[in-house]
């Protein structure tokens, strides 16, 4: 919290640690999911938050210290899988482009799938940098995170979402193969992180925007996503990982009962998009997991300060008493162009409404 309002009784690291251990906490934690915003906040190029470990870590840490939020620095992007499987990614250039994009997919035809091997997580794509970043997280003392895509998002980043969608109808076996490869790769990366960092402080972050119902039907989710995602989570948890932060991004209302079958940890953190009602999130995931979400990022970036404050208040009041706790979080990445005062209003709302008696 900011200096004048600060009523915090503990540190962010201790607060999040207590929440994950189902212990009492002083207030609702706040995860702003702010990558590009943090870079801009400290005067770094937006692209540096995805491509330069030290700048990325510093920008996020300094922004965390400035606003008093609770999300330790993390390293990752929504194009996970493209460069890891041998494709090319372009990092954001200039002040406007917010996130990396895939510019050459490793798989462009069915034939390419046969040539696709399982990448070595020590050297694949952006993972060496992610490892370096995790070493910085380890020294910092907070959570150590491995950020990956969900199986369908990673598959879409391997062969392009458009192809993935067309192949669902035309070449379903190809989709199964790419999704399986994605799952195998994610598991191998998780194994590496466990080997190097242990499980005590490890948080595996899985971001899944591509399985949204604006793209695929729940029927296809059940067939092409659920079995792989479920098995992947079981295997990750089987390595001794205690917590998975699963970002169920976007419009996934029709998938919720299916996501409810996916284990997230003890407890996991389920992060929801603004399209999902927090009450529904609590219904499907709250009995076992911490709920996080789901501030509308368009509002955060483009609304008035008062609108942002009221929206944050609404989320806090809706989620605060979830059985395993709640984290105020944006529905997706906080836009890099968010007015700093709007960002401050989120911390103010936490301070005004987030404390427990």
């Amino acid at each position, binding site marked *: 919290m900011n200096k004048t309002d600060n009523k915090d009784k503990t540190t962010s690291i201790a607060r999040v640690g207590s929440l994950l251990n189902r212990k009492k906490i002083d207030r609702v934690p706040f995860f702003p999911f702010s990558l590009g915003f943090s870079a801009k906040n400290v005067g770094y190029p937006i692209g540096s938050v995805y491509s330069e470990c030290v700048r990325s870590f510093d920008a996020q840490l300094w922004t965390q210290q400035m606003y008093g939020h609770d999300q330790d620095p993390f390293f990752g992007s929504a194009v996970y899988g493209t460069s890891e499987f041998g494709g090319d990614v372009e990092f954001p250039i200039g*002040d406007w*482009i*917010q996130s990396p994009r895939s510019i050459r997919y490793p798989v462009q035809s069915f034939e390419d799938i046969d040539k696709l091997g399982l990448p070595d997580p020590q050297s694949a794509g952006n993972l060496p940098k992610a490892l370096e970043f995790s070493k910085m997280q380890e020294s910092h003392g907070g959570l150590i995170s491995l950020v990956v895509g969900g199986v369908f998002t990673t598959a879409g980043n391997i062969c392009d979402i458009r192809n993935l969608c067309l192949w669902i*109808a*035309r070449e379903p076996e190809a989709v199964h193969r790419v999704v399986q490869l994605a799952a195998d790769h994610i598991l191998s990366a998780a194994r590496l992180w466990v080997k190097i960092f242990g499980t005590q402080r490890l948080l595996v972050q899985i971001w899944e925007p591509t399985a949204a119902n604006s793209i695929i039907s729940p029927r296809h989710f059940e067939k092409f996503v659920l079995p792989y995602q479920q098995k992947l989570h079981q295997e990750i948890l089987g390595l001794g990982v205690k917590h998975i932060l699963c970002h169920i991004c976007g419009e996934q209302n029709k998938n919720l009962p299916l996501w409810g079958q996916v284990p997230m940890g003890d407890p996991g953190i389920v992060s929801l998009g603004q399209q999902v009602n927090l009450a529904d999130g609590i219904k499907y995931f709250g009995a076992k997991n911490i709920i996080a979400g789901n501030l509308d990022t368009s509002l*955060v970036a483009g609304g008035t300060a008062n609108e942002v404050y009221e929206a944050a208040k609404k989320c806090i009041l809706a989620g605060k008493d979830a059985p395993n706790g709640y984290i105020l979080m944006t529905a997706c990445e906080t*836009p890099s162009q968010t007015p700093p005062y709007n960002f401050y209003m989120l911390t103010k709302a936490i301070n005004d409404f987030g404390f427990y008696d």
Partner: protein
Amino acid sequence: MNEHEAIQGVLSTVVSLDIDGVAEQVSAALKAGADPRAVLNEGLSAGMRIVGERFQSGEYFLTELLLAGEVMKAGLVPLSPLLTNTDIQGKGTVVLATVKGDIHDLGKNLVGMMLSAAGFEVIDLGSDVAPQRIVETVRKSQAKIVALSMLLSPMVVSLRSTVEEITKAGLRDQVKVIVGGACTTPGLAKEMGCDAHGEDAVAAVHLCEKFI
């Protein structure tokens, strides 16, 4: 099979997303004596309209919409040589772009596909398009509609600049500006000076048909 039944067969292949059967069905319709324009309008395009309605009602998803676009393309293979450009793109010209700073193009491409299927000439400028380039294209093409896409909320400023540049160039009375994309709303469209907001690719087609 008479020509009406044959055209209905074309429509059915589109609606059932039968990419392997559509070209054969189009050829059968032509063989039955159907006018190529009727095969296009009452068969392929009408089928796409039904696909669009199913998408809007939640029965079809993006997967099906994309596949329908491929079915349409396959159906046009035997048909195109028999059609003029006016037959295929006779409804008017739409300049399509994702605004400056936004690199997402899946939604924009979908709009382009649906507009083409509905008979519009689409000038697709791609993603991350500078306002000036849109202005120049409108000027050269005499397009009546600019359709803008944006996924990310920070691009609101780009949307505003694009509308301002169109206005400064003296073209605002000549074109209707519509916008759509994940972070857009009717309120935002109005505030940014656009003429309308489209909830999805199907709505974009309805708007263009209304404005042409």
